[in-house]
């Protein structure tokens, strides 16, 4: 289980997170909802050690991740698909996947497992990453994160700018990862998408967690969306 305990973080002297707590359990999709600039992406970066914490802690199954250097966090099987994909543009699809596979000792069948999840990538292995379509780039970014065989997967707006069919493919992958016992922390702007797959939802505003509710409760009480998001 991934547990955030009252984390606070700043970019230089500008404090962005003023206290966020949540826990993402195995086999559960936990969504972060909030307005632009609420601090959702910073929460993701803080988990990955890319933004240092000024207070609080991030723990994975009792181990404190926030004491580790950033490059050690993925080795604890925490996969991160950042907003905007951030591929290695001049490397081929195969090389992008290889870089993901080399991070830590994963079983030999991982490459095949990843490509089975995203069959379209099989036909594009030698293609340069920056020549892929937006949807394929998102597939590749997600595939590369899955190369870790993650126990926690952080997804920052994975469906941003994608066509509906592609969104559906990404959604199916997220649901599949959930069924395989991965704890998923998802940042998503599309409320309908969140409500259809999430188990827990945490509202974030001004760097604080306001409330954590079940998706079921949110579906029953949509006025909470109006209250926290204004939609």
């Amino acid at each position, binding site marked *: 289980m991934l547990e955030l305990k009252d984390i606070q973080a700043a970019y230089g002297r500008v404090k962005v997170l003023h206290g966020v707590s949540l826990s993402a359990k195995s086999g559960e999709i936990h969504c972060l909802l909030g307005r632009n600039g609420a601090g959702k992406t910073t929460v993701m970066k803080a988990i990955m050690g890319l933004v240092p914490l000024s207070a609080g802690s991030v723990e994975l199954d009792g181990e404190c991740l926030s004491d580790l250097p950033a490059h050690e966090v993925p080795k604890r099987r925490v996969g991160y698909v*950042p907003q905007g994909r951030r591929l290695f543009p001049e490397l081929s699809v195969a090389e992008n996947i290889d870089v993901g596979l080399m991070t830590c000792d994963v079983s030999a069948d991982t490459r095949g497992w990843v490509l089975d999840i995203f069959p379209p990538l099989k036909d594009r292995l030698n293609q340069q990453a920056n020549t892929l379509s937006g949807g394929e780039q998102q597939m590749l970014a997600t595939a590369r994160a899955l190369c870790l065989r993650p126990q926690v997967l952080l997804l920052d707006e994975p469906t941003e700018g994608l066509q509906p069919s592609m969104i559906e493919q990404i959604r199916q992958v997220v649901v599949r990862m959930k069924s395989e016992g991965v704890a998923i922390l998802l940042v998503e702007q599309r409320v309908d998408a969140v409500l259809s797959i999430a188990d827990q939802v945490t509202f974030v505003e001004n760097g604080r967690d306001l409330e954590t509710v079940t998706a079921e409760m949110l579906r029953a009480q949509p006025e909470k969306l109006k209250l926290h998001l204004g939609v």
Partner: protein
Amino acid sequence: MSDTKRSHLLHLGVIAVLFALFFVLPAYHVGNLSRIMVLAVYAMGFNLLFGYTGLLSLGHALFFATGMYGLGMAMNSFGIAAEPALLIGLICAVVMAAVVGFLALRTSGVAFMIVTLMFAQAGYLTILYFGAYTRGDEGFVIPQPDRMIAGIDITGETARYFAALILFAVVFLLIAHVVRSPFGRTLVAIRENEERTRMLGYDTDRHKLKAVILSGTISGLAGAAYALLFGYAGATFATVQYSIFPLLWVLLGGAGTTLGPIIGVAFMFYLIDLSSSVTQAYMLIAGVVLVLLTLFAPQGLAGELRRRVMRWLP
């Protein structure tokens, strides 16, 4: 045929061609080619850091000169034989690269360029300051009788050519292996997106330091070999000009390609050689050609080759 196999064949083919050229070319070009191969080793060291890791150093002359003076002073001041002196030159370059890398990598981007440039300037001024030992600007000649490797006199054209070829071949194959290894791929990933590479679990600082050390060591080896094969060490090789040369060679030949350095050095060498035989304003001709190449082949000659024909080129 797999890309790896093609790559092996290509690299072995280049070495075979260089071997054959000795028997075909007139003596003048054989001499030129010896120099080109040694300078290509320097360019390969630079290319590992710039082309593959994305770190632009403007102070590589420091490593080249460190190897050169490490060998030269060991031989001239302490009377050490060529083989251990070569080793001393190499060790000096490793230590220098480790120190410079450790300090300079605390910066990035433009600051890294400036810091490496300042280190190189400090090295150059140190050579001048200790002129009593280094002979300053004038430099010193390594006597011909001392320039023996394994009992072979390497001052003759033939022995020098093959010594340069062996050095070139070893470094060329080493680089070809390194850039295809997990370490080399990680360097390329750092070049492409360092933060993303760290997010995937790589200690990018450690990888960059290793790259600086390996790059500096190869450049130092080239400097030591240059002094040994051509019998001269001088402060000119520590000037900023010798830090800019490898950048030009690599950009012309193709940054981030294994073939780029040798192509770039040979192209630049003969461009200046041929244009200077035509006019005294040879730098003008060289300049125009360089501008045209930059405009029409921005990825360098080998880079264009890879983009258009040989996509598997490492």
